[in-house]
């Protein structure tokens, strides 16, 4: 696909979240994390960039086929003087609607180096039911 040896990463500003009028109690900005979502034979994988989020501050929730990803970051140490501010820090929030084919019991999530990985396995295919025919 892309040659990772020469291609330069494009900068993307964090997208502040439209809260739709519902505000956070904490005075932290909320951002929509960038995600990769791919499907394989086993199921769906969601990868989200959430720098600053630890396992403790992470919440992954599936309810009514809506996957909710939330990450809280520790407030940064206050420095006396900011010289340059190119990015804002804050919490992360994003939701996706999923199909009903996900096995909700088997969802796993892990976070490493600020990258969340959620694995959503498919439900086992329905077993063909054998119907015995009784002859009279």
């Amino acid at each position: 696909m892309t040659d990772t040896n020469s291609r330069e990463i494009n900068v993307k500003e964090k997208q502040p979240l439209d809260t739709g009028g519902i505000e956070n109690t904490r005075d932290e900005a909320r951002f929509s994390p960038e995600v990769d979502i791919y499907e394989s034979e086993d199921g769906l994988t969601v990868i989200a960039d959430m720098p600053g989020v630890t396992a403790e501050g992470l919440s992954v929730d599936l309810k009514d086929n809506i996957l909710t990803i939330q990450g809280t970051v520790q407030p940064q140490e206050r420095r006396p003087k900011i010289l340059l501010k190119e990015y804002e820090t804050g919490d992360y929030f994003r939701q996706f609607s999923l199909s009903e084919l996900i096995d909700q019991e088997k969802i796993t999530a892990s976070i490493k180096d600020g990258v969340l990985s959620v694995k959503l396995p498919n439900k086992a295919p329905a077993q063909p039911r054998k119907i015995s025919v009784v002859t009279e």
Partner: protein
Amino acid sequence: MTIFRWRGPGFPGSILELERMRNYMENVYSTLANGVNNFRRNYTGVFPLVNLAEDDDNLYLTAELPGIDPQSLDLSVKNDTVTLKGAKKVEPEVKEVNYHRRERDIGVFRRSVSLPVKVQAEAVEAKFKNGILSVTLPKVAEAKAHQISITT
């Protein structure tokens, strides 16, 4: 900033009209410029975006680098310039996948930041935690603020 010049009495009216128009245009431009600045802040458009802060003794540089292998990260300090180099690779564990979304960018990056003061390159400390790189750069002695006691 608009500079108002005092005009003596009897200054021709048509020139005053021109002056008013010029002021109006300056206002429009400064409003536009401020708006853009507020929105983009100090945006440079080079990955990674960095924040820089200072106190009396140190400069603090932070950058968000989620998913970057700390081993591939190359940080160097020379005089008053910090250079960050690295690469981000995003590869699924399994080969045959069908992408629904692909928002996370991959590739190489190189970013140099010039610092406002000289730092002690040999005493720079960097740590990488939860995808955030934090660099503490101690200022050279000459750049530190000196407290001067006032005798009475």
